[in-house]
């Protein structure tokens, strides 16, 4: 029995390690994050709580979240908490991931209104003055479904997990946000968008090195297109945006069995804004570069921090984002194994 117990221990470690590799759910305010689309065993649940602090100084119209219109010559700070739940499952006999994101927070903005056409200013705001506004409340909640197209077998059992040594993988993902977040048509900034919006993405990964804890490395590339419906109450006017083209890339590497890092790149382009069918500001051309450090604190818990900053593209934006995140994952079998190990 000693050898069997040893084996059980080993299997337990494998299961836990694989579950915890997952980031879980996409962070809608910025990028998806490194290792978001790593598939886990069918039935694995992951919850994540993340705090984001975003600072932006814009000299031209910009956006964040993505799709929020940012005025030129504005100074914005947002503090957002996002809670996510994700479940790994098998759909159409393919490894899949369904996730839900909800959250809320506050945004403060200082705008020099002298650069804004009077028609686009809230009533009672004197052109040329400096306007400070803030708002708080919930963001638009979103749901996303990601289905693997190539490279990852359905992970219905521990055997499937053990046999999974991916190299190239390609997924298809679709996100839909519901326009129920906090919105005030008289404010320059809001937490919600007052319109339907969504995304189609094609997450691609290449795993190199050994697919085992402590040795894993990956290159991840996620091209995506964000699409926005019309906001018919933007200061009493109509706001439309062209699709936002986004390219997210990560180069990740395990430093130890419980610690990995990632170099992160996020490029966004397009997203020309139109107010009452008149183009406002410039198209986006923003590139962020950053890093992620991810530490496994226990069998189930990950602690992650990310920092990124706008380093290329549009000269009119200076932005930085700090993200702190806790990720907790579990699976029925892992929990049962833990019960047996601890005797509780």
């Amino acid at each position, binding site marked *: 029995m000693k050898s069997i117990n040893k*084996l059980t221990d*080993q299997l337990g470690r494998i299961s836990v390690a694989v579950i915890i590799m997952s980031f879980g759910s996409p962070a809608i305010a910025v990028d998806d994050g490194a290792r978001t689309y790593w598939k886990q065993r069918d039935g694995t649940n992951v919850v994540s709580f993340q705090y984001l602090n975003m600072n932006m100084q814009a000299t031209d119209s910009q956006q964040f979240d993505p799709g929020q219109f940012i005025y030129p010559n504005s100074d914005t700070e947002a503090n957002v908490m996002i809670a996510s739940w994700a479940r790994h499952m098998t759909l159409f006999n393919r490894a899949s991931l369904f996730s839900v994101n909800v959250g809320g927070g506050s945004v403060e903005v200082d705008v020099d209104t002298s650069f804004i056409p009077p028609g686009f200013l809230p009533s009672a705001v004197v052109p040329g003055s400096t306007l400070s506004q803030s708002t708080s409340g919930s963001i638009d909640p979103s749901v996303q479904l990601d289905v693997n197209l190539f490279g990852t077998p359905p992970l219905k*059992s521990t055997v499937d997990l053990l046999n999974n*040594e991916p190299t190239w993988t390609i997924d298809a993902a679709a996100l839909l946000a519901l326009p129920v977040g906090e919105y005030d048509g008289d404010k320059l900034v809001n937490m919600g968008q007052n319109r339907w919006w969504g995304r189609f993405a094609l997450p691609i990964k290449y795993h190199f090195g050994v697919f085992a804890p*402590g040795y894993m490395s990956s290159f991840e590339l996620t091209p995506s297109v964000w699409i926005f419906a019309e906001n018919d109450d933007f200061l009493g006017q109509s706001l439309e945006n062209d699709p936002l083209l986004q390219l997210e890339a990560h180069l990740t590497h395990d430093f130890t069995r419980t610690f990995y890092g990632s170099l992160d790149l996020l490029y966004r382009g397009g997203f020309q804004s139109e107010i009452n069918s008149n183009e406002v500001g410039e198209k986006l051309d923003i590139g962020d570069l950053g890093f992620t450090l991810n530490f496994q604190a226990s069998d189930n818990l990950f602690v992650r921090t990310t920092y990124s900053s706008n380093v290329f593209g549009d000269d009119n934006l200076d932005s930085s984002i700090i993200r702190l995140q806790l990720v907790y994952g579990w699976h029925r079998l892992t929990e049962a194994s833990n019960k047996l190990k601890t005797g509780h």
Partner: protein
Amino acid sequence: MGSSWKRLSIRPAIVTILALTLSIATMQAHAADPQQTGQKSKRPNILLIVADDLGYSDLGSYGGEIKTPVLDGLAQQGMRYTNFYVSPTCSVSRSMLLSGTDNHVAGLGNMGELNAPNQVGKPGYEGVLNKRVASIAELLSDNGYHTYMAGKWHLGLKPDQSPRARGFERDFSLLVGGGSHFDDAWNLEWQIPKAPYTEDGRPVKKLPKDFYSTRAYTDKTIQFIEEGRKDNKPFFAYMAYTAPHGPLHLPDDWLRRYKNRYDEGWDGIRQQRLARMQELGIIDKDANAADRLFFLPRSTALVPAARVAQGRKMELYAGMVEYMDDQVGRVFDYLKEIGEYDNTVVIFISDNGAEGNDLRAMVAGQPGTMGFLHAMNNFAEDGHNSLGRKGTYAEYGPAWAQVSMTPFRIYKGWVAEGGIRSPLIISGPGVKGTGGLNKKAVLHVKDIAPTILELAGIQHPATYKGREIVPMQGKSWVGMLEGETQSPRTSDDWLGWELFGNRAIRQGDWKITWLYEPLGSEDWQLFNLAEDPGEQYDLSDKFPEKRKELIALWGEYVKTNGVIIGARSPFEQAGKHLPDRVPDYDNYPPVRGMEAIPYRKLLQLMSGSTEDKK
């Protein structure tokens, strides 16, 4: 005109004298080195290939499912033997292989690393190939053979104990018993943390980055033969592969060659091997195979994931065996290319039974010791997908070792058949019986040296370099190879073994063993190997006289070879190190031995219905 004539008449005389001188000189040269010309074709090259911890039934030609087309092809050209014996561990076998005499005489009465206090310093327990023997390499080298070695030596670390010092003119050798198969060269023994290699007698300071043992030994063997063949002397090449000895290591592109091949578990694979062995005639149809060892569960009792995790280790083992087979093929191809294959006698053996012990635990010892710290630092990685790569330490354990030793009992380290029976394939000039199988001959590893010497036409001397050496105990197989006899031994001849205090004698079909508990009874047990190759039925009570006779032979074995039973043994507390007896095995308890019953069928069973309602 006159001077012209003189010049013309003198020239032919000078030419004639020169020609005569050259002819005489050439004749003298041939007389001094008869191997240079005519005799070369009569003296065969010898290629001795030794696998490390390879199991009896692993090769395809012995019933295994592992792909070994090259060695199977060798078996098709030559002969296979089913009753070939080695020692339970490697250095002990190697001492007999190279000396032709018993290990207790040749210096390896015990493994050098494991000498008991009462054995230390005693003759025959030097822990190295001692000077009471001459190695076959020494004798062959002195008699016109090139002598090459690539692989594991394990017969002494010091310069005067090295392959170079014991007769190999060229060598690339791992001096210790094992270690990483890659360039990191980690050795399990903390006292020698890096496995030492020598090349042509000189220490190798650093292995190349792309080093992989099996490939490197093959490269060196080919290199040595190529560089030495200009003088047309025959060669003796000793290829002592370290595969498939643990740690189970493979180049990346070979890691998944057997992916999921062993997911079904050890019982199914063992049954398939048994069937193939019967089909091939390796074992008799009614041969009694050993039971699964008492501490091993039925493989179907394991959850599928556990079987996959355990199967991964066997995948690696199988990959190592196939890789070795592939590399042997490279040597054969090379010999064919240079026209030497048909003049080469190839002998293939394993050095002992398959490894079922937890070698890492045995060598590393307990937490808190230096050995454990060393193992933890260098061999701790055991992730499912990591295994087989540099920095990992995997062995495949007792269940798979028992599969490798189908149909026998136990595995490496023990003198039960599972520790000492080895495949043996011989092919080449003078070997009659294409594709044949010899089940009559009882053969021993110490027979190989006298066989090689006879093939090379060399008499074993009484003295070597001024010192007396012991006569060889092994019996030459040449008569058997040429088809004159079926076995070099009669039914009265007997063989003896002792290692770590475990003992055995075989005479004819009878064998007695004395094994430490719990794998043995710590008393003599008697088996009839013709009917019971799995050593399952102790016939001591039924044939007490036979038992007594064999015990008497044991006494003779001890006396003849100077055997000293160690005061300590790695197996003296085997029961404490082995897992507990599994609660359910085969048909006990009867219900738990059954396959799972779907609930629907259970309901039918309970209701008395025999219909399989859909």
